[in-house]
């Protein structure tokens, strides 16, 4: 514990160099023209820029001797810096954006993105070093999120990201809803089908080989190709079968998207469920049977509960994967947050891309944490009470 924490030291030095060397913000007259970049010292002058470096330097000094107390202080400083970032953006907006030009806007520059990324990495490193639980990390992020929300709601009017959102608040909410519905439906359906398939595979080795080879082929297909492949048959079905058309199914839209998402979700789901059920300690099953439990009791009271953490791991992987894949589904008209990404790419409006990409990132992180925590709660193979 007395030795320096090299990881944090390197992170802080990189952040320092990036902060002073890269453009912190950029200002554009409207959403299409390229903005002008400003470095930290161009925003607040050299004295201000050097003052803004102080927390980074302090953390770097603190971690030169990595005792627990010093790491705790470093953690506090990292969280404070994350909270201060929107304030920095507000200062920059106040100084650089001309209020007389209603279209002018403030973009977040590479220095800020880099700083955000490196600070989050430091947070993860500190969480591991201080042996905090995943929950604790989220509690730490709470004040950060609050600070960002406050700033976005009241002080960051000229921020480009916010401008893009303001123009689309209704479509944005719909997009999130559609995105979550698609993910939820895909994960739900593949969970049910996956469990049934895994159970069938445990009965017959033949089914096992067939299912795995089919799912492996599906998994290797590029997502866009799979969406495309489903287009023709579904369009044909919708044109020829009335009740399918009545359900709203067509060659484009949510139906092919959902089908493809289920196809992709099945492999991790089936694989994890199958492995989870098969890898329950043979001795435990043997003694359960030897004690006189019926097949049903062995399955429901022993095999299933012991397999559950690994199965949940499958649900976690599937969910995170589906959240990402649903972005691509926007291309075939399924809606969701991907819509903004592709619109933004089409219009060369990077801030619109971010409006789609950032929530996807956030959703994936939240889903990952929640399901991870749930799985470790259910896992008694670890010592109860020791944070994971």
């Amino acid at each position, binding site marked *: 514990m007395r030795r320096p924490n090299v990881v944090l030291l390197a992170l802080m030095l990189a952040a320092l160099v990036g902060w002073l060397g890269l453009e912190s913000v950029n200002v554009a007259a409207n959403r299409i023209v390229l903005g002008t970049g400003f470095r930290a010292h161009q925003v607040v002058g050299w004295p201000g820029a050097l003052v803004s470096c102080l927390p980074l330097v302090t953390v770097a000094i603190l971690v030169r001797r990595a005792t627990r107390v010093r790491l705790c202080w470093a953690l506090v400083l990292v969280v404070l810096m994350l909270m201060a970032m929107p304030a920095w953006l507000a200062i920059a907006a106040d100084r650089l954006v001309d209020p007389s030009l209603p279209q002018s806007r403030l973009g977040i520059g590479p220095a800020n993105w880099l700083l955000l990324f490196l600070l989050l990495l430091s947070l993860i490193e500190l969480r591991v070093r201080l042996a905090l639980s995943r929950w604790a990390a989220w509690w730490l992020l709470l004040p950060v999120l609050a600070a960002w929300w406050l700033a976005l709601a009241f002080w960051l009017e000229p921020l480009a990201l916010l401008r893009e959102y303001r123009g689309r608040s209704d479509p944005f909410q719909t997009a999130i809803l559609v995105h979550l519905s698609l993910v939820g439906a895909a994960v739900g359906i593949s969970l049910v089908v996956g469990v049934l398939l895994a159970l069938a595979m445990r009965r017959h080795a033949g089914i096992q080989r067939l299912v795995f080879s089919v799912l492996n082929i599906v998994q290797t297909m590029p997502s866009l190709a799979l969406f495309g492949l489903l287009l023709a048959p579904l369009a044909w079905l919708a044109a020829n079968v009335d009740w399918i058309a009545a359900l709203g199914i067509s060659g484009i839209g949510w139906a092919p998207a959902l089908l493809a998402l289920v196809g992709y979700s099945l492999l991790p789901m089936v694989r994890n469920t199958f492995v989870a059920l098969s890898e329950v300690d043979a001795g435990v099953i043997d003694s359960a049977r030897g*004690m006189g439990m019926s097949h049903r009791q062995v399955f429901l009271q022993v095999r299933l509960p012991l397999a559950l953490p690994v199965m949940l791991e499958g649900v976690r992987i599937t969910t995170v994967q589906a959240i990402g894949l649903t972005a691509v589904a926007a291309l075939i008209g399924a809606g969701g947050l991907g819509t903004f990404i592709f619109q933004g790419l089409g219009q060369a409006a990077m801030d619109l891309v971010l409006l789609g990409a950032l929530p996807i990132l956030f959703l994936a992180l939240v889903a990952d944490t929640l399901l991870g925590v749930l799985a470790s709660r259910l896992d008694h193979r670890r010592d109860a009470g020791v944070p994971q």
Partner: protein
Amino acid sequence: MIELFEVTKRFGSEAAVDGISLRVEKGQLCALVGTSGCGKSTTLRMINRLIEHSEGEIHIDGQPVRRFKEETLRRRIGYAIQSTGLFPHWTVERNIGLVPRLLKWPRDRIQARVEELMSLLGLPMESFADKYPNQLSGGQAQRVGVARALAADPDILLMDEPFGALDPITRETLQFELRDLQSRLHKTIVFVTHDMDEALRLADHLVVMRAGRIVQQGAPLELLRDPIDAFVESLLGGEDRGLKEAALTPVSHRMLPLGPHPIAQARIHRDASLHQALAVMFREHVDRLTVVDVEDMPVGELTLRCLVGVHRGEPGA
């Protein structure tokens, strides 16, 4: 009572167990010994029908095991295995109460039985009831395994190398505890092991198996004195089997009444084994020991000559 009549088990064309007949009297502990793959575990698992026998008959208390429903049969037979097989997601208390719960005992009867068993096996309720199996040491986990096997008070207990994975000291402790337990509970036990010392220490009836057949069976002392062939002899320790016999015989069986001559300095407890007595003589360089009782009062003497049995035929004191 367990009886096997000409029981055979085939996996494909190979016979894992080949026409064995065996009788375990009520209250006896029968140890099945042999090298790996000799069919001893298969034999054990055929008794509670975890493996179905191909030919022959297996009876418990005079009734063929096939007459019972599998689950019913197993719930009246205790079962303990090397890996303990404790359910990792259940507490110790719940693990022990498994079979009584399957038998739908009322809740307070289960609670009382679990408490009784935990104290019987030296697992204080307050510190162990709520623990999970992964929080236990190997010896503690195996005690819980034995408690679980005894939970519904079955007449018959099947134990498949229950102490095989433990360190030598813990193993010996548990062997003594099992012997102590058995002297009080008088269960009919079939015990599989590949550790001959363990078998000799515990068994009333010793069965040596090789390649699916029984090579020799009988009381441990009979086998030690009269092994049927070189295989049994080597399994029993070759030249060392004399010492193993000495280890099974208590000092009180060979000691003489106190003679007129002054008593010897070196002492040995009357319940110690001849093996230990020999060790004391060897260490102290003497050929005569004073035998004492629990209060350290001299009750007899043991000479090297009577220890090794030169005086066989003279009555023991």
